[in-house]
């Protein structure tokens, strides 16, 4: 017996694509829905995201309960006190309450992390996309430049730039709070030293994506080059960029802590988690563990949360993964 759909003389029933019985049962999911489902399965990533949300609530919400003046208010009569009911995290070397300082420090640290990552992403995408798309001489020059930045150890470069820009940028007031100019300096130098990592990733993505047919089609229809780069190729390379940017935030927070610890970062009295640790090691012998334990743990928690989140994002956004 001839099966109907094998008979070439039969007219196609209609030109409109119909969902088969199978597909009607489970409606097709969009790419983002698939990504979200894959992300949801990563318990660690969810835990990381929750940790991050809680820390951000702690920093930004906590400032509703504790004023900034209180955080910077020092009373040398109560310096170096053990954690107690009145000062749950203890007091620091000149009598400031550490709990309040971690709250405000968190705001600055998170802000620095995010803005430095944004700068890193922007510069990295710009350089990486140009190098990857155009190739040839532009690629060679940009890659030599990238390598030049990578050849210098990042801490050293950061320290040199911190001293170069230090004290040059005035304080800014935003939303009623005064930010020390050193915050801008830190954001700039961290962003300007971390971009090579991202630029390499973007370039690799562009090198492989530009051979695709949709690029050829876009060129054939006369799309201007910048549109091809930013509206066609770039959205397809978003996955590794997002993962790298997430890890970049963690990296920026850690670097800010290192530089502030060395005294070249954000200046007092603005608190960041890094500069809370500044004097901590000179007081080790007296057993003042609270000086470094609380800010250090907060840094650890936020970096841990970001790392888990980044791990989950990497698996969720992987375009080759087909599982739901």
């Amino acid at each position, binding site marked *: 017996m001839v099966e109907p759909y094998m008979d070439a003389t039969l007219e196609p029933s209609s030109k409109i694509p119909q969902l088969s019985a199978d597909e009607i049962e489970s409606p097709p999911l969009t790419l983002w829905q698939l990504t979200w489902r894959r992300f949801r399965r990563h318990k660690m990533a969810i835990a990381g995201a929750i940790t991050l949300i809680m820390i951000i609530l702690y920093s930004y919400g906590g400032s509703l309960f504790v004023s900034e003046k209180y955080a910077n208010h020092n009373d040398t009569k109560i310096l170096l006190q053990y954690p107690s009911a009145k000062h749950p995290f203890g007091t620091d070397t000149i009598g400031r309450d550490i709990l309040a300082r971690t709250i405000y420090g968190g705001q600055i640290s998170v802000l620095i992390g995010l803005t430095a990552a944004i700068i890193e992403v922007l510069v990295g995408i710009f350089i990486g996309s140009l190098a990857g798309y155009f190739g040839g001489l532009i690629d060679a020059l940009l890659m030599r430049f990238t390598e030049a930045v990578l050849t210098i150890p990042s801490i050293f470069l950061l320290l*040199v*730039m911190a001293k170069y820009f230090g004290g040059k940028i005035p304080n800014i007031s935003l939303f009623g709070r005064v930010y020390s100019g050193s915050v801008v300096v830190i954001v700039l130098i961290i962003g300007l030293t971390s971009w090579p990592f991202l630029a390499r990733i973007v370039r690799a993505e562009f090198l492989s994506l530009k051979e695709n047919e949709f690029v050829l089609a876009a060129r054939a229809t006369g799309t201007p080059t910048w549109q091809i780069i930013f509206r066609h190729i770039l959205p397809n390379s978003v996955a590794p960029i997002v993962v790298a940017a997430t890890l970049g935030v963690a990296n920026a927070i850690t670097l800010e802590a290192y530089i502030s610890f*060395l005294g070249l970062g954000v200046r007092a009295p603005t608190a960041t988690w890094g500069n809370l640790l500044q004097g901590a090691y000179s007081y080790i012998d007296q057993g003042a563990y609270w000086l470094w334990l609380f800010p*250090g*743990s907060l840094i650890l928690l936020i970096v841990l949360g970001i790392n888990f989140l980044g791990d989950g994002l990497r698996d969720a956004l992987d375009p080759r993964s087909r599982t739901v």
Partner: protein
Amino acid sequence: MKLPMTRYIIRRLLQAIPLLFLISLVLFVLMQNVGDPLATMSGRTPTRKEDRDRLTRQLGLDKPIILQYLYWLIGNDWTKIDMNGDGVAETPGIRKGVLRGDFGTSIVNRGVPVTKVIAARLPNTLILMLTAELVIILGSFVVGIYSALHQYSLVDNLMTGAAFIGYSMPIFFTALAAIYIFAVYFKRWGLPSLPTVGMFDPQEGKTTLQVIRHMILPVSSIAFISLAAYSRYIRGTMLEALGQDYVRTAKSKGLPRRQIVFIHALKNASLPIVTVIGLELPFLLGGAVVTERIFAWPGMGRLFLDHLERGDTPVVMGILMLIAVAVVIFQLITDVTYAWLDPRIRYK
């Protein structure tokens, strides 16, 4: 060595030269604004203007940046400098310039050649960092291979969790926690405590035992973090290697498990690690700035920081160029080694 490989190496070396020039120029310019070296030279009495002018001329700091860079690069013994401020250059310079191996003299350690300053600190850093690197490599292989072989077991999950926490820790957290537990608390509990300051006890002198005892805490702090990261990486590559077809073939041929794991799988899994380690090695020369600060270890990191803060351009440039050259050389060595180890790679 095959001809294409030699040509590749030569090409890389030639490409590296403008890179190094570019780096040195950028760094030199950045260094110009880093601090006034003369500010720290006067000691307790304020410098007289004539002395300050004389020092400025002697150190060549009154010339425009590009000329200073030129003198740094090729010396000034082919020209005369004006030593006595009369506007007429009469004394021949004595510097031979970096390209002939003269890195100048330190401004902070008056008159001591930069190479001597660096050479005094370099061994200390190498002792610390190479030991740490050894611990990291051995430890991460052990943990990584064990985790890969016993995937998803309790130990593996514990190790994975610990690894995540470990490499999320900032270095001062591990260092301060280590000091706190092993030095302060041990002392309180009457246990023998580990020293935390410097490289050796000044009373006992620089004996090997002293150095080893003082090295334990800093090395552990550095190693803990990197070990966590590398063990995860090795676990990943081992799992990938163990999933390959040739391992299945070896198993079905009946090869002993030890041979399969340690000879076949491991050799293939360690290739990417070789690259990562090789690229990381030259940065060991820079020491670990934060660790050295916390443990007061007299190494390159502290040298850099101290001299940077006092605007000692020759020493800082010397350190940076040393590391830059090392990075270029090690990148080349790593690439060649990788090509040698992996027969699938061929450089044109």
